[in-house]
């Protein structure tokens, strides 16, 4: 099983209940905005601690309220691509890419920096600061930074959102490429059902 997620979490006035068991390497969570999709990704990444439940990815338990397991975020090896990218503003693209890579143990680094740069087409951006990147460029660098940190799985939060049609199509192809060539368990969050049907082996709705 790639993804086994079962969690209960209270956000303000609302109770979020979510259960997912998926064998598809690319699994999607679809739902309207405000349904709690990003909250689920944050729980998987360890940035939010759910009230109760269990999260296991590719057989490794990351969180289990019953047994008290709660792996800290830095040891979950999540390749989290945030919707707002969150590139570090005080570092050039090159340093952003190297940030997670430097901290990963050498046996955990399964992809070379040159390969990532080529795959994402970001070679000409290395000397720039994030403030000088377009939306599509920013997102590609964020994906590259996540891939280089030696992740065991990817979390993609609305990777196509707020990109024009052409850029969104490039990003879609990129996600397909990651799915087919890198065989990395990937959890994708989207509000776009058509997109999810095209990309994901399994989708789950969140209302």
């Amino acid at each position: 099983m790639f993804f086994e997620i079962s969690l209960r979490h209270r956000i303000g006035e609302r109770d979020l209940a979510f259960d997912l068991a998926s064998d598809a390497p690319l699994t999607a969570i679809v739902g309207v905005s405000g349904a709690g999709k990003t909250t689920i990704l944050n729980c998987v990444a360890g940035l939010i601690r759910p009230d109760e439940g269990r999260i296991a990815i590719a057989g490794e338990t990351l969180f289990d309220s019953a047994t008290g397991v709660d792996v800290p975020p830095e040891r979950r090896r999540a390749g989290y691509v945030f919707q707002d990218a969150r590139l570090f503003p005080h570092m050039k693209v090159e340093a952003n890419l190297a940030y997670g890579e430097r901290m990963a143990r050498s046996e955990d680094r399964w992809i070379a920096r040159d390969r990532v740069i080529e795959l994402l087409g970001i070679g000409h951006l290395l000397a720039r600061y994030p403030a000088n990147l377009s939306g599509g460029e920013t997102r590609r660098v964020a994906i590259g930074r996540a891939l280089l940190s030696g992740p065991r799985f990817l979390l993609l939060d609305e990777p196509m959102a707020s990109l024009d049609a052409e850029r969104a199509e490039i990003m879609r192809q990129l996600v397909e490429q990651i799915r087919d060539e890198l065989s990395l368990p990937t959890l994708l969050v989207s509000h776009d059902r058509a997109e999810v049907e095209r990309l994901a082996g399994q989708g789950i709705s969140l209302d």
Partner: protein
Amino acid sequence: MLSELEWAVVGLSLKVSLAAVLLTLPVAYGLAWLLARRRFPGIIVLDALVHLPLVVPPVVTGWLLLVLFGRNGAIGAWLESALGITLVFNWTGAALAAAVMALPLMVRAMRLSIEAVDRRFVEAARSLGAGRWRAFATITLPLSLPGIAAGATLGFARSLGEFGATITFASNIAGQTRTLPLAIYSGLQVPGAEEQVARLAVISILLSLAALLVSEWLVRRSAGRRAHVL
């Protein structure tokens, strides 16, 4: 230009202020981080204590320092017997007084800049494999650098002007604790020193102006490069 005596006063003032800022910097940053990032019971009390030197009469702060760090004070007696350090009547005492008075201003500037560091960057760093300390050292600290610089310069300027707590705690001793404001005050006590008072006052204004300009320059320089901060 300046007379030998004036140079000595300026030199002592700079030495005292620099020591005060260096002493306060880590403490102020730690307090600023606590106040900006942590929620714990008693945070309001801590916040108030930090700001106390800003509102309490400086002479009272000086008196409190005397009670704590004087020769017979709880900490002062120990410092003298264990480490051989005497603060009263000594330039180190003037530095301590200036440090305490500068603390609130430094904490305020640093706290604002730490609050301005988006926590989402810290979360991103954590998810990329950085532990708490590493995320702090690589994200929060560099992004709050403009605030550290601004706080340090403000603290320096405040230390240069410190009078009440210094004269109460460290006393007014030429060559040891007679900094610029104390020298001006002393000059006013004797007839015929009007010209010297005026010269020292002008030096004082110029130094303060320079400190403010440097702080402004530091913030602008770094804010220009890091478009997201300040």
